């Protein structure tokens, strides 16, 4: 009787319940776990980086961390919704996502946009909130390229020349718009995502290598023709030898290196970084968040963050491999290329092996739009994972 009652009860609520239960269980929990730990560490680091200067300015020392936690909550919601969607539907909506992203990028260039740190990248929303369309454009870019290059093909191994040219043309538009802000970092992300997705889609080698070569020569051309803003050139030259002008352009690079290096093996302890408290590194809660980790948590903490990001990328690649279709594989591959480049560029510039560009560290840095975009990316990976090929 007792079991019968249980059966009845179970049967009554079981259909949708069991489905939800099973899809929850089928989520890639390793990936979510890694992102979760990164977010927790990131929150602590954001708090450490901002509390001293906020208290000094007489503001609530917790105002940034509160906003960051709110951003994470909203991001989680966005990611959950994305994961719940059948990603195959996105194929249909891809042009709309892309168009919305491009419109956003155009709007920031109009007087509606706001300039922060020399870049015209934000749309103020009022109440202290701003939107950075370039972050969402990364999502739009991945989805659109996946649609263009992931068309079901009969017999063909890779995308044809026509598809590739269309993909390149459509990728060039947001890249150019972002370059106008100017936001060199995001432009580079677009470039890497485009090349990476072309590669994964099975495009002929000559295209892939050709694009890599073209990117390299474009960089050289930009260099020779002085197409970059002076501060961008300074950031690049400072990368070569930061000690040349410690108060000038090399200052960020030099201070970042000192801050990370002074952390040693075990770090100075959370909230105990003198360099961090003294605001020696600019943009420490956003682009240079990794310096806080390096100083306060030492090599152990910094390496842990790198390993956790490695786990995210590894799970992402695994999801791409197991994807049910080419579109899913390209979405996951695109997301991996995006996050991988951003991770390498961000940590690389902090430790002095990459030039300085304004890119946040995924899942760790402060920043609403970036957090939302990263969580949507996580949602995309999970969406592909949920609908993977059961036979794989």
């Amino acid at each position, binding site marked *: 009787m007792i079991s019968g009652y249980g059966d009845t009860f179970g049967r009554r609520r079981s259909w949708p319940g069991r489905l939800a239960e099973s899809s929850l269980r089928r989520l890639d929990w390793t990936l979510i776990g890694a992102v979760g730990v990164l977010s927790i560490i990131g929150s602590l680091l954001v708090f450490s980086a901002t509390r001293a200067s906020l208290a000094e300015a007489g503001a609530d020392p917790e105002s940034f961390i509160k906003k960051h936690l709110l951003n994470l909550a909203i991001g989680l919601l966005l990611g959950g919704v994305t994961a719940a969607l059948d990603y195959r539907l996105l194929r249909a909506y891809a042009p709309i996502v892309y168009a919305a992203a491009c419109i956003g990028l155009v709007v920031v260039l109009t007087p509606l946009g706001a300039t922060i740190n020399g870049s015209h990248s934000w749309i103020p929303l009022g109440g202290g909130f701003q939107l950075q369309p370039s972050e969402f454009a990364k999502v739009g870019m991945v989805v659109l390229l996946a649609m263009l290059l992931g068309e079901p093909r009969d017999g063909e191994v890779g995308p044809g020349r026509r598809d590739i040219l269309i993909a390149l043309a459509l990728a060039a538009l947001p890249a150019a718009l972002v370059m106008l802000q100017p936001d060199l970092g995001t432009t580079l992300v677009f470039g890497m995502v485009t090349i990476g997705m072309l590669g994964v889609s099975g495009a002929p080698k000559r295209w892939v290598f050709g694009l890599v070569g073209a990117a390299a020569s474009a960089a050289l051309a930009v260099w020779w023709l002085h197409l970059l803003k002076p501060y961008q050139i300074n950031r690049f030259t400072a990368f070569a030898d930061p000690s040349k002008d410690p108060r000038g352009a090399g200052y960020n690079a030099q*201070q970042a*290196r000192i801050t990370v290096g002074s*952390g*040693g093996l075990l770090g100075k302890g959370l909230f105990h970084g003198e360099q961090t408290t003294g605001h020696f590194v600019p943009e420490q809660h956003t682009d240079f968040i990794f310096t806080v980790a390096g100083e306060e948590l030492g090599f152990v903490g910094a*390496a842990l963050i790198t390993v956790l990001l490695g786990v995210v990328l590894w799970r992402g690649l695994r999801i791409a491999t197991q994807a049910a279709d080419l579109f899913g*594989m390209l979405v996951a591959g695109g997301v991996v290329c995006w996050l991988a480049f951003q991770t390498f560029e961000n940590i690389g510039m902090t*430790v002095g092996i990459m030039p300085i560009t304004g890119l946040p560290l995924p899942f760790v840095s402060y920043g609403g739009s970036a957090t939302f975009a990263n969580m949507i990316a996580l949602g995309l990976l999970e969406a592909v994972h949920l609908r993977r090929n059961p036979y794989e």
Partner: protein
Amino acid sequence: MGSRSHLRLMVLHVLVMSLLLSLGGRLWYLQVMNGAHYRRVAADNGIRDIVVPAPRGQILDDVGRPLVRNRTALVVSADRTTLVRQKDGGKAVLRRLAAVLGMPYDQVAAKIQLCGPGIKRPCWTGSPYQPIPVDDHADPQKALQIRERQEDFPGISAQLQAVRDYPRTDGAGAAQTLGYLQPITQEELNKRKGIKVTGYSGVDLIGRDGLEAVYDSDLRGSPGIRRVLVDSQGRVTGIASEQPAVSGGNLVTSIDARIQGDVETALSHAMQAARQRGTPADSAASVVMDVRTGRVMALASYPTYDPSVWTGGISQNEYDSLLSKGKGQPLISRATEGQFAPGSTFKISSLPAAVKDGYSLYGIYPCPSSYMVGARAFSNFEGESGGDINLHRALVMSCDTIFYRFAYEEWQRDGAMHPVKNPKDPMMKMAKAYGFGSPTGIDLVGEAGGRIPSRAWKTAYWNATKESDCRHGKTGYPNLEKTDPARAAYLKTMAAENCVDGYVFRAGDAANFAVGQGDVLVTPLQLARAYAAVANGGTLWSPRIAKAVLAPNGTVARRIDPVKAGTLPIDPKILAYMRSALADVPKSGTAAGAFSGFPFDKLAVAGKTGTAEVFGKKDTSWFASYAPAKNPHYVVVAMVTQAGTGATTAAPAVREIWEGMYGLRNGVTAALPGGNVPDKLPTLAPDGTVVPPQGFGEPVGKAPAVAGRRRR
């Protein structure tokens, strides 16, 4: 979706993982392998040394009254770091600041630029992290504006800082004696190795003259170092350690502010009176000294100036006027740097010289109105004749012809125009024994030595001037001839003579020297210590102004005592004889007029007048004196140039000084209680108040103890 895509994903996988691995390697290299290095760099990164200026010590008089003290002034300074980070590099702020301070913008901007190659002064030589003084004598009203409208003046601060203050206690200026401060130069820094500076302009000063210069290392103290934690903007976030500044010691001098004030007043009275008599009276000096100790109690010089012109940086115009001949070069202390012919005051040297050379101390000598020195007649002042007199009378009435005779005869015994191998020159030797011709060694800078026109000097002088003399001997003085043909002719003859045998020590030179005329020059200080030596029985002091350095904690850091420079080679009998003669000068001698009605029963003043003729100028008026005559304590010497005889101008000034010291005028209390100077030093109370020695007045600015107790 073929195997090619999977292969590509594998490639991507390898690529991603190797990138992450290289990040890990780089982290290991930075944090584990070089962690110690970066930790050191980080430690230096956040710490800056800020030098805290030390308050300079005061200069006090013998009972602790301030002659120089410190006053707080509002100093407006600019923080370069903050200004440079503003959008326009701080230009707008500096323009507003210039307008408020009433200074040209260019001047303000120049003051805050960092010195470097190709940058003209004024520029900032100190650390860019320290505030740069823009105006160190800011009007409080202006400074207040800056403080109130801080949002308009980011990076600008108005703060209180100590600057030198000259209170003129009891009218005591003593500008040339106290000296002044000027910004320290790199050469001075190199020369004085141990000196510590703050890097603040307006604070890093060094004594350039007078006591401020001589006792600079005692007065300046040692700046402290505050190690502060700073953030990347250079803003101070905390203090790491602090080594406090050590205040400079207070210099106690033997100057008595009241006597100094009286002396300055007496000199200015004398100069005014002389000017009313129609003489220029263009400069004056006076020295008051304790004959028993060699301590200087007053040292005055006219024309003088207000030393506060040095505070906050002197302008070129003000500086030029301090040195301009037209303004009488007030920077120069006539008492120690001025050299003048001493006239008859010099006889205290010539008399014992003659006696030592064989003339009887008790002999009777004729004092004709004039005496033939070779072919030239040398006359008494105003040509009066004294009859046959003793040496006592010769001093009292200041007979010159007796001394002409002594000098002429001695000169003849030395071989006249063809000197013997080792001439005796008794007068020269005695003058040198009195310390004339060389500096006294007083604790001041730039002291002059005077001049003893010896045979060697004559030769050297001739060698230096013969070229010009020979030229003038031939061509004469064409310019002067138009205005004053007689003088031009005389000068031409002199030049022609000097050209031929100017090196010869002539009879006239010897005669002039005996009465302090001709080429002999002394400083008022040299004359004062010579009279002090006569008064004290023969001790020649190297005088001192400073008595001691009081450390900020009240202990005596060091004592400064006058040094015995020598003993007069004169029989005490002769000294006593001269003293009795000098005692009669104010009573019945040349200074009797100036001292008529003086209460000699209360204070027996002894002294000697001097009237020195200066070619082309009016006479220099001297009076050298000491008192009490029987048991001398102090010497007072006064000199006024171009002011007539010693009796008319200098003697009344000296009388006024004595009256002040002993309180001999109606309604005047004695500057020296009981005629005594304090034998103890003033002390420093724990609260920093200066407590005068017992019996020498109330502590400065301290409430009576009773009132304080009652309030509790």
